[in-house]
């Protein structure tokens, strides 16, 4: 520990600083490093702002996202109380943007959570148990990997009908593959560590070891991967919406808004500009946070 015994000549001061200094955990260190990363901090600030806007915004706006303004078709921004203008049906773009952001973030978070649960359980089990089971489980992952992602999602949507829940599940069910591979790799490495051996010697069962010792130690890489998965899920949803397979009117998402905006870009450019800016801001924030976390948490990369 820095500070302790720095000045052996002055015993009193040494004692004082020793009392004042608490031990710092690895997480404290990581947090500190993260806070020093300007891009990540900016990302967190922007994301906090977007989240607040997505959650509270729609309640503070005088327009509903599906409210058609029959005399307000293609209002310019700031006309008629519409801060960001209106679309071809006279619907307030700000209200739609906030709802779209909410839907996109929700899809990002929920689908990532689905991928997290499946991926961590699968990877940790395969990695820890090892042997034939590991082989089998990872070959299943390989097989699923070989399915084209979008094709698989479209197939699910066609089979089970179009609904937001299916969209969540479909994307999550595909995104867990990489997660399980990362987790498995880490688990195989952790398995050799002494504390696991100690736990085994103490007579803990395999599920207990996985839950209590393996998974908490996986947190670092998992957190990093999660922050990087959310934006890729948001992009995947946007892509599906672009193809008309995503959320259905009048509900919207960032991808749908951008798709519509791109159609009308020469008549109503604000319909493309504002959603794109928000989308870029959200994706960049997530990626900066993910990058920052990776640098902060993974000690091997320093």
């Amino acid at each position, binding site marked *: 520990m820095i500070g302790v015994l720095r000045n052996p000549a002055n015993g009193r001061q040494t004692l004082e600083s020793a009392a004042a200094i608490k031990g710092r955990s690895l997480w404290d260190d990581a947090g500190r*490093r993260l806070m*020093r*990363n*300007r*891009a990540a901090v900016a990302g967190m600030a922007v994301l906090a702002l977007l989240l607040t806007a997505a959650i509270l915004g729609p309640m503070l706006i005088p327009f509903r996202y*599906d*409210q*058609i303004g*029959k*005399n307000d*078709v293609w209002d310019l921004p700031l006309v008629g109380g519409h801060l960001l203008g209106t679309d*071809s*049906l*006279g619907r307030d773009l700000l209200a739609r943007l906030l709802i779209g952001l909410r839907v996109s973030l929700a899809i990002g978070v929920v689908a990532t959570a689905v991928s997290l649960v499946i991926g961590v359980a699968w990877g940790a089990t395969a990695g820890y148990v090892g042997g034939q089971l590991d082989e089998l489980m990872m070959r299943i992952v390989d097989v699923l990997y070989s399915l084209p992602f979008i094709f698989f999602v479209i197939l699910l949507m066609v089979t089970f009908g*179009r609904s937001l829940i299916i969209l969540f599940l479909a994307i999550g069910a595909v995104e867990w593959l990489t997660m399980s591979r990362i987790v498995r790799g880490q688990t195989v490495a952790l398995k050799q560590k002494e504390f696991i051996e100690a736990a085994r010697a103490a007579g803990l069962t395999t599920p207990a070891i996985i839950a209590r010792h393996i998974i908490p130690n996986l947190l670092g890489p998992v957190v990093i991967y999660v922050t990087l998965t959310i934006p890729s899920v948001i992009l995947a949803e946007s892509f599906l919406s672009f193809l*008309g397979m995503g959320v*259905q*009117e*009048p509900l919207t998402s960032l991808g749908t808004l951008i798709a519509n905006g791109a*159609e*009308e870009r*020469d*008549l109503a450019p604000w319909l493309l500009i504002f959603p794109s800016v928000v989308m870029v801001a959200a994706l960049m924030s997530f990626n900066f946070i993910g*990058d920052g976390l*990776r*640098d*902060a948490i*993974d000690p091997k*990369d*320093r």
Partner: protein
Amino acid sequence: MGVSEPSRRRCGPSPNPPLEDRAGPNPPQGRYAPLRGDPEVGSSLTRVQPGAKGWLWILVTGRVSFGGEARPDACGRGWPRKPPRSLKPTRLQWSDWLALALLLALLLTLAACGPKPAIRGPCPAGKLCLEYGNSAEPESLDPSKSSGTWETHINGDLMEGLTQDDAEGRPIPGMAKSWTVSPDGLTWTFHLREAKWSDGVPVTADDFAYSLRRVLSPAQASEYAALIYVIKNAEAVNEGRLPPSALGVEAPDPHTLVINLEHPAPYLPELAKHDIMMPTPRHVVERWGDAWSQPAHYVSNGPYRLAEWAFGDHVRVVKNPLYYNAASVCFDQVTYYPTVDSVEAERRVRRGELDVNTDIQSNRIAFLRQPDQIPAYVRTHTWLGVVYVAFNTRDVPALKDKRVRLALDMAIDRDFIAYKLLRGGQTPAYTFVPPGVADYAAPAPPAWASWSLAKRQQAARDLLAQAGFGPGHPLRLEFKHRNTADPMLFTPAIQADWKDIGVRVDLAQEEPQIAYQDYRLRNFQLADASWIADYNDPVTFLNLMQSSTGAQNYGDYHNPAFDALLAKADEEPDPKRRAAYLAQAESIMLNDAAVAPVYFLINKDLVNPRITGWADNIVDWHRSRLLCVKGR
């Protein structure tokens, strides 16, 4: 990205090879650690941020390489001379931001300034090729299975019926040089010209008789069969009550075709150019069965023959040298693209990739007509067509209730859709048969048509309440619609109108040909459909609601009084009285809210002004054989 192939150097005694030797062309020294010789390059998760110079290097050379930690190279010598800086936690510095901003600016400039070069389809040297945006993918190229305008566009170029379209879409002699009608109007004798199929076999009257019997055979299940029930015994044959040989069609010799009718039909020459009456090559169909319409077997008698069909991408036809009038055909090749997204198609027309697109998103028409846009390309004209909402009365219990249908019908704000949303010249529809149809006076629209929207909404809510739906028990339905430009615009408006009267509707979009397939199979609850006149007569619209129509009566509307009036009109020789019967039938159908008419269509085509021979007309048929290029 051109990362050069890792070259493993032998670990020799050479203590200090020159710098260039180690890593090929060297990027400027900076925070850059290219371990080119290291087979593990790129395997690490870390990426070292290139500095400003590095970004410039990437911009100039297009080379990107990722370095990792300072690692000894394959020979155990530490390579990077200045590694430590790159090993700090990644953090973008101002110079990186500057470089990023420059890069973005460059990309944006490239995207904005560089007009995309036109990428036209392949065209043999010295030939004239027409690139045709056809708005949807055909379901089949067998004319007996065609039902969409986009299929007729292709069929009309490949096949020629007894009559064919002139530039105005009026019937002129086609395979039939001339025809005579018996005094009672029931027997038509067509005299065929000498003509050949594209495989050299002569076209005979028997081909026509054969294909009419085929179209009407129950096994063929043509959705358009009801259109030619005017032919003697056609309905009975189609329903399997009489054998195909009982059909009132004879071919006494190879060049004479006699058609006997159930009742006089002065519009027969118009019907005769329709897909359903186009000939099919008997010798090919009998050999290949349904597969005859595959490009490998397809044989045509029109100005073009089928060259290829890349499903979902394009259909290509080339000039048929055996066509009797081949010398007059200007374009050597026509390629049809399924341009569902008409805004994208509009951009392709602007770039010169497409010469024609058969649709324009309505709310862009005024914009495109501005002098600095492409006013000369925009072609609009009155069209005999109506857009309507069909109610599935067969499978959806709520929609069997006339009050519910009427409530949904009344709640649609047609003025908004026609004048504010689409604003392309469409007119609100409260009746079903479009204005301008020959020999017809439409019935007065329902009384509620003149009410204010608020009053209509109140009446609709009352009707729903009577039918047992209200705030406590809301009506929930699915509204299936085509994903082409205009339906994508107006269906959310209708959805919102229905929400205002407390009806929750989910939208489900589909490609047009899939949507219509679903409608015919009754695989829908509410459907957005449009109907274009097959010939200039009110019956082409009204018979959609006839019990005997079958698949194309999407909602399975059934009213004996309506059927009886239509049957009476068929028998009525006096045009005035016939029109009165039909108007009476239409008002029965409107009062029943058999469908909810939304607006009357206009036809809107985007045509490159260098194309000649394109005449705007009421049926919107423009055959490729009549088109040419300026100066040819």
